């Protein structure tokens, strides 16, 4: 049906409906008629602000990033096309490769840590009582604290002297003192621990929602069959949570690839490049050294990495569903 006839139909129906108000037309017919009414541009008018903003601040910049990645960007002189040279430059640079490895380590460590912590917390804090919901809220607090504040707080807690906040706590059990973010040996896991502290409770909330969806009858059946607590978690709970884990994994991995704020504030890549990640490197390349072409090539590679990861996980999921 074309738009014109749809309009004509509704226009023609209006008086008929007014006249037939007492007899009320059959609901099925009425529904179909009203679904198609209105002019074609009405939905686009409602969508216009969103699409326009996305065009200007997402799609055009993405196009520009791809454009700059194959150019030698020279302000005031005009850019010149250099083909794949920027990509070759950045892929050949040892600092980019180190940053990619560091990013991967941080992303994998934080993702795994957050999932594990989130799962343990969710198991521990599952339940309906008011006391539990209070404890859950307390545990969730780090998630809503701005990352900049978390970083400043942990910088102070990570003070490297023996009487620093965390050093005096780990000193109680005979550990430390650690240099934390001040030493290349411990800087990476110090940032990782902070990220897990902030990200774990987020995973907890999502996993709790997943736990609520598991059939209680399965628990009862497992108990009747003589399964203990741990067997039940392994054979009933964990399989039931698989979709939740998958989604959290994708989200966390993508977020991990583009980690910036916490590294920028804690170490800015130091000491000695031990925590340099892709985004802190690109920030230095593009915005501090004005190497926009090479920086854009790095950004495009980062985009491709997240795209490939998302597609691979989606494909794996679909295959599993079909099997």
């Amino acid at each position, binding site marked *: 049906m074309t738009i014109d006839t749809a309009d004509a139909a509704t226009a023609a129906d209006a008086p008929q*409906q007014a006249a037939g108000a007492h007899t009320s037309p059959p609901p099925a017919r*009425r*529904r179909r008629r009203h*679904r*198609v009414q*209105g002019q074609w541009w009405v*939905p686009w008018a*409602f969508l216009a*602000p*969103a*699409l326009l*903003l*996305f065009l*200007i*601040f997402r*799609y055009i*910049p*993405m196009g*520009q*990033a791809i454009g*700059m990645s194959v150019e030698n960007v020279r302000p005031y002189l005009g850019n010149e096309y250099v083909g794949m040279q920027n990509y070759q430059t950045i892929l050949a640079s040892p600092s980019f490769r180190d940053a990619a490895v560091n990013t991967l380590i941080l992303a994998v460590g934080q993702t795994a840590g957050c999932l594990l912590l989130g799962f343990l917390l969710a198991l*521990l804090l*599952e*339940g309906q009582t008011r006391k539990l919901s209070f*404890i859950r809220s*307390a545990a969730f*607090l*780090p998630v*809503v604290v*701005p990352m*900049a*504040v978390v970083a*400043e*707080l942990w910088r*102070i807690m990570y*003070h490297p*002297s023996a009487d620093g*906040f965390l050093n005096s706590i780990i000193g109680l059990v005979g550990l430390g003192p650690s240099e934390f973010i001040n030493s290349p040996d411990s800087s990476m896991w110090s940032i990782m621990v902070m990220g897990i502290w902030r990200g774990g409770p987020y995973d907890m*909330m999502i996993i709790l*929602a997943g*736990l609520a969806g*598991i059939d209680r009858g399965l628990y*009862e059946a497992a*108990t009747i069959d003589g399964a203990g*607590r741990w067997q039940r*978690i392994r054979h009933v709970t964990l399989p039931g949570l698989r979709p*939740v884990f998958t989604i959290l994994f994708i*989200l966390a991995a993508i977020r991990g690839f*583009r980690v910036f704020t916490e590294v920028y*504030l804690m170490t800015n890549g130091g000491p000695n490049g031990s925590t340099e990640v892709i*985004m802190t490197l*690109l*920030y230095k390349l*593009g915005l501090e050294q004005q190497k*926009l072409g090479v*920086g*854009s090539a790095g*950004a495009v590679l*980062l985009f491709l990495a*997240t795209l490939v990861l998302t597609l691979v996980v989606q494909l794996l999921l679909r295959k599993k569903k079909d099997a």
Partner: protein
Amino acid sequence: MSVGTDTALGLTESRTVVGIGVKVVLYALVVVLFAGPLLALLSGAFSEVSDPTELSVIPNRPTLENFSVAVDFGVLGYLMNSFFVVGFGLLMQVVVSVLAGYALARKRFRFSALALVAILATMMLPDEILALPLSILLADLPLVHINLMGTLAGMIVPIGAWAFSILVMTEFMKDVPLELEEAARIDGASELRVFAQIIVPLCKPALGVIGVFGFTMIWDQYLLPLLVSTSSATYTLPLALRTLRIEPEVTPGVVMAASLLALAPSVIVFLLFQRSFARGLTSGALKG
């Protein structure tokens, strides 16, 4: 020993002495682990802390000095910048999401699937990946040629549309019964009237969700304000913490006082609207 079947672990239902003991210890541990550092920040903000080693959960020589030093360094101005950005940014996000959600949820039209994909795909294009071109684009907006660098508007407009909010609105608006809309149309209500007086008022729970998520998302912004700012005049409070820390006269106590001001708004929003948070986490976040 029988294990309770209300929860996965079965610990919550435990009524034995050992069970209750284990519960109390573990619960206390969780609270200490996550709320402890924040309590230390709270107590540090109100204590004389001249050295990072003096950080403690128990307040030490209570004082308001930290706040007055922070104010001397312009923290109130940064806080106002933050409120300005979050206020207008959130307003824009909510209006844009409600409009787009209405079209996607309640209209059938050609290429609607394409529009949805174009919106979803922006989730793959975060600020981080677009940082370099954004910093050029904001200096000279396409067509209108306005320079937004060094302005608060430059931090607001790019986050004015957020795919997450649009999705939450769309999903919620789909559930509003068609009969309500039909009844209004039969009474002769116009398109805008149906939208503003029937659909939007029924979406208050979804508005709560996109409101609290938008607030914390904008308040947590770091890279975008960093890109846009050309001087400290437009710093938001999270951005100002780092420059404050580098000042030689500033003690950790002052940094913690400013940090407390920077975390208070989003923590308060969370505590007041916990229900909206939970709803958003279980519905929207699972979709991306």
